[in-house]
């Protein structure tokens, strides 16, 4: 199973996600990237992240994405 940083790197290889604490305001993820990320996370973790949870606040940094995964039923 791929880790969240690995998945982010595949979607936007030009950015260093470890160096940012705000992917949205730093311009590293746009709304279409969020949908791509959700699609990959759903498949990777065998879950379906709720559409109403696809909001920028949940994709701000690694901690918020991991919290979203836990909330969506992903097993660590």
């Amino acid at each position: 199973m791929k880790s969240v940083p690995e998945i982010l790197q595949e979607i936007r290889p030009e950015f260093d996600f470890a160096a940012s604490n705000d992917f949205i305001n730093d311009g590293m993820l746009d709304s279409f990237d969020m949908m791509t990320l959700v699609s990959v996370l759903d498949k990777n973790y065998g879950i379906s992240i709720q559409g109403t949870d696809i909001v920028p606040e949940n994709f701000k940094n690694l901690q918020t994405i991991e919290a979203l995964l836990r909330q969506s039923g992903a097993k660590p």
Partner: protein
Amino acid sequence: MNFTFRNKRISGVLVVVPANERTFVEEMKNYNFPEARSLKLKEVMGYDRRRLVQPGVCVSDMAIFGLQSLFDRGLLKPDEIDALLLITQSPDYFMPATSNIIQGRLGLKQDMLCLDINQACAGFVIGLMQAFMLLEQESVRKVVLINADVLSRKTSPKDRNIYPLVGDAAAITVIERDTQDSVIHASVKMDGSRNDALMIPAGGLRLPSTAETAVLEDVGDNNLRAKDHLRMDGSAIFNFVQTEIPPLIQGLLDRVGVSMDAIDYFLCHQPNRFMLQKLADKMKVPHSKMPNNVVERFGNSSGSTIPMAIALNIADKITNGQILACLTGFGGGLTWSAMLMRLGGWKFCEIIDYPNQPK
């Protein structure tokens, strides 16, 4: 707002799509994005092929082509049409109404009603409601509803948020009285305070089109768009659909006392595959009961996508049998609408090509 209609039915659907087909892959070079990123988007959203009108083709052209096809094959008689409703956001002119132009070019009788209605992706359900209301009149026996748009002509080829998803089409639906006792339930909601989520800013009288409004501007995310072009706040629309549609449908079914499991098909407007899959998951509806394959074949053609989803996926079931369907539209306005009705015994249900014109 809730509505109930009695003894009305759809008796046929014909969808006209331009023969001119474009693929996402061949258009990728228009966007200021790395190819790999565009290909990921293609996979998630279901972008593949779409149908676009050639330059100069208008809503009335496709509608007339479709109606003439029905006349020629004896599936509809010109004199039977007592009302012609056109739902569009891309009319031929400000004035006169495009429905009048269609009537005139086809030589239809004068003793009829022509009406243009400005509605977008919720326009199929809104149009059906208008048709059902007209059929309450003694003098109206058959209504032709046309959901047609050529919004590709109002999109920027440099706008990756809009351009890859838009298609053009005209859907012709014939509606009449049902000789059997039947009931149709509908719910509609509107929120004009969010009108700017889907908008063409210039071209009306508030901001007339000028050389300035035709200039492409950097609107962020490497997209270029003019004020003359259609704009969409994708995140706002996505959240609107995920938030408002499940309770609208649940409320409609609760009011009528029908369970989700009793619905054979949830036939929704077709914005993109991802949005519909998320909607189905939220409602705990199997993906097989909520078709999401229109965008990948034809593009999102606004109010015509529900009849297109029907013709593409379940034409046999509707011409040879009957299903219980929940029709759901959502889009500009904002407007969202759901309708519970039986579909079956249709005389025709098909998609035909509007031919390319010789160069």
